[in-house]
């Protein structure tokens, strides 16, 4: 082997060895290149979840000077998988015990069954000095509207709940004294994009809704 070829081979081997040494460091650098705090805020991000993923979103916006905002995004599939593992107090196997199911001699399950079988219509309408309450069944949705006027005309609080009857049925499907949360979530995952709960008062705005995006608006 000529002296020139030998020198060339040595140099190539040393360069190759040095390059190989830097490969893991480069990979580490790439990992580090995305610092923990450099990612954009949720409001700037677009969705990356699959089309079939259903997300439950909760947003609480406080109207105080600091403008506290809480955003929670939970995939329904995750909630369905995690809830059965929680066995604490009244929670077990994705169900929650409600020992007061016979509230004031009213059997909740029977009541729900009766509402399920009944035609659309307004079931409860209360118009009082302090509250307006409306409970209705409309296009297979259970609708509850409450307007609290007790704090004066300018400080009204308004609650609007709209739940598909399928979800209500699933919730009460477990037994007399139990709510089946997993079954309710499963029923909810089959629904389209919709707003479930809206609460507006002078201090806070709360919104719970369902869609296919993994970030809040």
């Amino acid at each position, binding site marked *: 082997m000529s002296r020139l070829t030998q020198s060339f081979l040595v140099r190539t081997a040393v360069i190759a060895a040095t390059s190989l040494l830097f*490969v893991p460091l480069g990979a580490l650098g790439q990992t580090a290149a995305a610092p923990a705090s450099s990612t954009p805020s949720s409001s700037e991000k677009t969705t*990356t979840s699959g089309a079939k*993923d259903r997300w439950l979103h909760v947003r609480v916006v406080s109207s105080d000077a600091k403008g506290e*905002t809480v955003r*929670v995004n939970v995939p329904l599939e995750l909630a369905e998988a*995690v809830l059965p593992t929680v066995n604490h107090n009244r929670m077990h196997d994705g169900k929650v015990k409600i020992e007061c199911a016979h509230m004031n001699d009213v059997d909740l399950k029977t009541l729900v069954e009766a509402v399920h079988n009944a035609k659309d219509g307004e079931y409860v309408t209360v118009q009082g000095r302090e509250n307006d309450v409306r409970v209705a069944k409309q296009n297979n949705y259970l609708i509850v509207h409450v307007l609290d006027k007790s704090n004066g005309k300018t400080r009204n609080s308004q609650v609007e709940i709209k739940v598909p009857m399928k979800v209500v049925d699933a919730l009460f499907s477990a037994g007399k004294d139990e709510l089946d949360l997993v079954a309710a979530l499963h029923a909810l995952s089959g629904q389209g994009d919709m707003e479930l709960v809206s609460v507006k008062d002078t201090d806070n705005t709360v919104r719970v809704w369902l869609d296919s995006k993994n*970030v809040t608006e």
Partner: protein
Amino acid sequence: MLLLAKAALGLGGTLVLAGAYTFHEGVIRVDVDEYRDGGSHVHMWVPAAAVPMAMHLAPKRDLMHGAEHAREFLPVARAIIKEMKKYPDAEFVEVLDGADHVRIRTHDGKLQIDVDEPGEKVHVLCPLSTIDDVTRELEANAHADAPSA
């Protein structure tokens, strides 16, 4: 000279293999900055693969003690991590309160927790697979500790 080249190549190759194995699961990153007199600044990078290895080396009694305390929450933690792996880039919780900002999200298959408040910043980044390994190991130790039926 040729011998030196061969040795360099061998050493380089070994180091690459060792580096690739050490970092194949990513890095656990913890950054804590307290912007005040005497405030601590901690910046820690740990290869994620080292954690399960360290758990194997940890005293069994201490692991069982820790697992016993966490026994009730381990199945929940495992289920959450298992499901979170399906959402490698997602925002789960965000709290904004004036200048305070807390975020819990997954980014590139890692659990990322960011806490920013005036005078203090905490950022934690940990691969979900590492948390899964840790909970699995703790669960195994919790079961080892459980009295046989």
